[in-house]
């Protein structure tokens, strides 16, 4: 079971900005191809996002998987809700669905 403080930290992270990405590495220096793909898509769409590098925090890395019941990183949250990992975000981007979904926050 996830520590209560970790859960609170996750809730805080996903609610502080419209878009929050849990990733390996940072947007400037992604350390995994899947994380990089999501960063590139959000950058391409001009959608501002904050991020958490799970490689720097093992508790968050495991906690986020339990929080969303999703076994992999990256994980993208929009307005506090998990909207997908790399495959889903890529699919939504290619179909134009992502741009539509994020239209309020795109610059």
């Amino acid at each position, binding site marked *: 079971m996830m520590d209560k403080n970790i859960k609170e930290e996750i809730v805080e992270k996903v609610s502080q900005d419209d878009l929050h990405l849990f990733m390996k590495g940072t947007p400037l220096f992604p350390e995994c191809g899947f994380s990089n793909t999501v960063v590139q898509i959000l950058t391409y769409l001009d959608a501002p996002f904050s991020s958490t590098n799970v490689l720097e925090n093992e508790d968050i890395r495991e906690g986020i998987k339990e929080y969303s019941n999703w076994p992999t990183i990256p994980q993208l949250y929009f307005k506090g809700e*998990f909207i997908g990992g790399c*495959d*889903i975000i890529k699919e939504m981007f290619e179909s134009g669905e992502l741009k539509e979904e994020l239209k309020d926050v795109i610059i």
Partner: protein
Amino acid sequence: MKIGLQDIYLNRNMTIKKEELETMIIQAFPEAKVEIIDLAGDDNHYSLIITSKRFSGISRIDQHKMVYEALDGKMGNELHALTIKTLVN
């Protein structure tokens, strides 16, 4: 079997055979059309395209969760990289 650091560096015991992956998916989705590609030839990077009528009316996230469930905790552990595409027929 105990897995040592050496094994992790060399990726031993951290992979899954294509046949094993296929069997797990087919057992959970006997009705589905399943296509698996070993992307790098290293038993560790796969692409899965699965077409099933059971995905009808279910969100993409939940469709992928059904696939992850079929893999019984292997995703993110033995199985490092699996690209999933779910389709409804």
